[in-house]
């Protein structure tokens, strides 16, 4: 038996023994997702058991080094683990920006001491992290951020304001871009700080979107004291860390084009048959059918492109700014998809709440409204076009 096969057996038995039955049921609502953190909001006993066991084994972050509490698995082993988790219908024990965003940055840029301190907390889900990048005045020009951090010797004094901070109202700590030198070109005066959201001077206000309530917040800092040892990397070189994290975010949002972001479980063809009538098994309205078909084809082409990118990556072909292509096309296609659905559902997709509309209809209206943000967050479509024009096509500024 190969080592990998042995690992598969081991993983299978371990999951079988350790994953509580309730953690093998489908996630039905966003509230059932375990984000970790001190507040332990909505954490059932089963969720706690599963989180603790997975965290203890380091399998919440399977490929991270064992010395920092990670699973220490090879990529091949991690893939096997993922397969076995799926096979057992086991839920992810932990979803967090610590795992998907901060952790990899810390492993690359943080000091040994910082890694020893922060990484095990992430693995075990002890801290709910949020991300403090965007500011109201900056928008697409992220690097023009204004939140100041003054060097006060043993600490930095932070003043300013962040926006679009997802889950800031639930998070324990924030990883945050701040300006430590206002007198140099904007990219050269930025630093990367970590601090506790319970620090005096931090206030949070949730943002209402056109689609209703949201995980986004505005976050205000007034004379927040951040100990010097919570600076990651060199002072004034935080932009390097930020850029690395942004690429990752783009791919995540682009993926929504394939329907990951939508709440509908039925496809456009079925919905069109319901709302525009069915004729011999086909959508009765040929113009609607034409539009649905075009959308489905675009999704196929997009899907083939993501598969091609994955194959190219495997074949060692460098990805280039492919993330911009996915972000751009994925989000614009998602917007078109929702607009088409809304149009097909007619006046039944005009409802906000209350009687007269079913859950699918109300959900679709909200999803459509939410999709407007897709082409803005994580770098607007215009910014992606600029990136492609410059970095891929080599067109001058």
């Amino acid at each position, binding site marked *: 038996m190969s080592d990998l096969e042995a690992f598969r057996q081991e993983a299978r038995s371990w999951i079988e023994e350790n994953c509580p039955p309730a953690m093998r049921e489908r996630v039905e609502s966003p509230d059932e997702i375990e984000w970790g953190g001190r507040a332990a909001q909505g954490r059932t006993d089963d969720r706690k058991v599963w989180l603790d066991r997975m965290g203890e084994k380091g399998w919440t972050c399977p490929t991270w080094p064992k010395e920092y509490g990670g699973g220490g698995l090879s990529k091949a082993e991690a893939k096997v683990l993922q397969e076995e988790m799926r096979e057992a219908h086991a839920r992810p024990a932990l979803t967090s920006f610590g795992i998907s965003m901060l952790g990899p940055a810390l492993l690359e840029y943080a000091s040994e001491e910082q890694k020893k301190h922060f990484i095990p907390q992430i693995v075990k889900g002890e801290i709910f992290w949020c991300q403090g990048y965007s500011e109201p005045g900056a928008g697409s*020009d992220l690097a023009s951020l204004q939140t100041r951090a003054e060097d006060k010797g043993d600490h930095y004094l932070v003043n300013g304001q962040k926006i679009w901070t997802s889950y800031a109202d639930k998070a324990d700590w924030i990883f945050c871009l701040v300006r430590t030198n206002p007198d140099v070109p904007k990219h050269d005066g930025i630093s990367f700080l970590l601090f506790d959201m319970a620090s005096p001077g931090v206030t949070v206000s949730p943002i209402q979107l*056109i689609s*209703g309530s949201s995980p986004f917040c505005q976050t205000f800092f007034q004379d927040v004291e951040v100990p010097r040892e919570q600076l990651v990397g060199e002072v004034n070189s935080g932009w390097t860390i930020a850029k690395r994290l942004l690429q990752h975010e783009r791919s995540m949002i682009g993926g929504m084009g394939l329907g990951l972001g939508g709440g509908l479980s039925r496809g456009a063809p079925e919905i069109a048959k319901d709302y525009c009538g069915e004729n011999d098994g086909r959508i009765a309205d040929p113009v609607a059918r034409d539009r649905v078909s075009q959308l489905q084809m675009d999704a196929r082409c997009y899907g083939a492109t993501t598969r091609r990118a994955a194959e190219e990556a495997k074949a060692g072909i460098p990805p280039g700014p492919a993330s911009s292509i996915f972000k751009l096309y994925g989000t614009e296609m998602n917007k078109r998809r929702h607009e088409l659905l809304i149009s097909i559902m007619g*006046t039944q997709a005009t409802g906000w709440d209350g009687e*007269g509309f079913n859950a699918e209809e109300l959900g679709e209206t909200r999803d459509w409204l939410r999709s407007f943000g897709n082409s*803005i967050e994580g770098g607007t479509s215009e910014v992606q076009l600029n990136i492609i024009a410059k970095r891929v096509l080599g067109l001058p500024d």
Partner: protein
Amino acid sequence: MALVLTEEQELLKQTVRDFVQEKSPVTELRRLRDSSDATGFDGALWKEMAELGWASVVYPEDFGGMDMGYMELGLIFEECGRSLVAHPLLATVVLGGGCVLEGGNETQKKDVLTAVAGGERLLSLALQEGAHHAPLAVATRAEEADGGYRITGSKTFVLDGHVAEQLVVVARTSGDPGDRDGLTLFLVDAGTPGLEVTRTRNMDGRNAANVNLSGVQVERSAVIGEIGAGAEVLEPVLDRALAVISAEMFGTASEAFDRALEYLKTREQFGVVIGSFQGLKHRAADMFVELELSRSIVFDTLSAVDAGAGDVPSLASCAKARLNDTAFQVGNEAVQMFGGIGVTDEEEIGLFMKRARVLQSTLGNSSYHRDRFAALQGF
């Protein structure tokens, strides 16, 4: 047909604009929405509007009307559209009242129009039955019974139906869904037994209702126009409604564009105002051109209605399809140009986009009107 406003019309437009800006800025719509107002519009404001004659612009003097034209009414819709004013003009005056004006007998006109003109009665039109506007696809049945009619069926998207004191109900007295013949219009009081009205709350902060009729008994005198010839009354009323809705959509889209343009001129990114980026400039110029074409077709349609021109049906469909498409483009682009702030509820631009989107589905989407236009033009 005039495509330029007369001095009187310019004056009226300015008066309406001043009134609306003072009495009903966009914050009013937000207040009504957030307070879950039971009516969905400001009753006191509606009284004032009626006193100014807005409820009766197109009604004859005999019934307390001002005997002016749809061009004038269109200007009122346009200016209200600019400020997202919630008002019962469409449902009460143009649709419900419009059916009485077009097909009612003298008694009905005297009763209904005079009350509407005084701002003292709210009406609506119960026509649509599925998710889409399809005026001939009426399945609701009215059968002769007890010397009158008994109506059974259900209706959707009855605008302001939750507050309407009388409904014009379109029911079928003969034929099958899809037939033009056999439709009959009935004036039904809100309190009639068997009539069940469910308020529906729309994303634009406005309201409609689902109406269920289970054996609603009405008298012979409730019939508007001829039995079975309801389409004759309905079609011109719908065309006029399309004309004023298009005017409202033009106002809403124009204001959204103006606000986006202002934002382009003031918002700075990368050290310059974002309106200096050619990518955005070209898109703004493109929108401007589409809006200019929209303005022309709205004026053309309104003045054709006033002139009693034969191609009003074609023009009305042309105007609605064009404004559907332009309002969609402008709403979409405006939100995108505002960027992150544009998708927050706090910023008003989203309210314009939402209102425009609901109006796109109201009385026919672009695909419906392109098909209708083609049929009217013989292809």
